[in-house]
């Protein structure tokens, strides 16, 4: 009785399986406009090849997308790439790259809920794309850092100029990065972690 179903679903490769001791997972959300490098960043630090999960926009899109009442109602599918980093035998970190438009966020039930924090990935050629993202995170009280992905042909601004342009409080870190490089992406995540740690320390003194 060891026959297999004819439609066996491809799963994780043996080396991609989590240990049985894995108990808990935490998540960080990387948010930014299209083409800013979210998936590249996820891929540069992930221990697995980035995977894609999808969500379909039905009711949630009404009033946003003009497909209501249309005879040929088609559902909009939104994809989100994610990767994974095993922290310890018990703890796993997941990184989710999600588009900046908020209408995509709430498709993901609780994407930001319980997240450690967020990285806003910005492109100085289209800095204003980040404005709404940052505003939404501020409104939701999600702690974040800003990482400027340095494209070769993008204008370079001093951090102080970026801080003024983005109207960021002094304590919110702004870093430059090259998300194609693992060390650079790792440093962005470390910057976020140090920031979160400082917040946690400030709110719960020893």
């Amino acid at each position, binding site marked *: 009785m060891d026959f297999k*179903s004819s439609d066996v*679903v491809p799963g994780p490769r043996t080396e991609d399986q989590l*240990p049985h001791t894995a108990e808990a997972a935490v998540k960080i959300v990387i948010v930014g406009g299209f083409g800013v490098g979210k998936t590249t960043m996820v891929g540069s630090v992930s221990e697995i090849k980035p995977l894609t*999960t999808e969500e379909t926009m039905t009711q949630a899109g009404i009033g946003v997308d003009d497909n209501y009442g249309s005879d040929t*109602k088609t559902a909009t599918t939104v994809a989100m790439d994610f990767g994974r980093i095993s922290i310890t035998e018990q703890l796993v970190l997941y990184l989710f790259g999600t588009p900046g438009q908020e209408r995509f966020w709430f498709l993901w039930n609780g994407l930001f809920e319980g997240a450690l924090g967020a990285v806003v990935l910005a492109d100085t050629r289209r800095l204003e794309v980040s404005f709404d993202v940052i505003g939404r995170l501020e409104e939701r009280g999600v702690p974040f850092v800003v990482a400027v992905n340095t494209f070769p042909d993008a204008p370079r601004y001093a951090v102080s100029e970026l801080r003024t342009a983005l109207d960021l409080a002094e304590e919110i870190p702004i870093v430059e990065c090259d998300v194609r490089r693992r060390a650079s992406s790792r440093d962005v995540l470390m910057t976020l972690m140090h920031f979160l740690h400082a917040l946690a*320390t400030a709110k719960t003194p020893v």
Partner: protein
Amino acid sequence: MTPPKRQRREPHEHLPPPPAPAGKQKNPERLFVVAGPDGGERDGDLDLVTLIVARADPPPSATPEQSALLRLCTAPLSVAELSAYLNLPFSMMTVVLTDMLTAGLVTARAPIVRQAVADRSILEAVMHGLQKL
């Protein structure tokens, strides 16, 4: 060259209301019919990063989705990964998994950090883990 300028916002109480539960919508567009008896119920505790582990071999009564899922999570696997491998939207995964949790086919390991401020020991563990990358 001067970059464009943003207006800062403050946290506020009036977040947009969450979408109505699927079961209460007047004219829901049912794209998937893999759900069990009542697809409208959702386990609010399931997160994208909840780790799922199979508790049993697929019973004869298991649906194809349930069987595939049970084969995938003999070792812990997040809901997001299951969603990716099974090619099912996250919202559908939560429906499938809620039935399976109720039936005792899988367990969920989900002590997810849901506090306003993350636990420092977890932050320190993550920092330590990232340093090794």
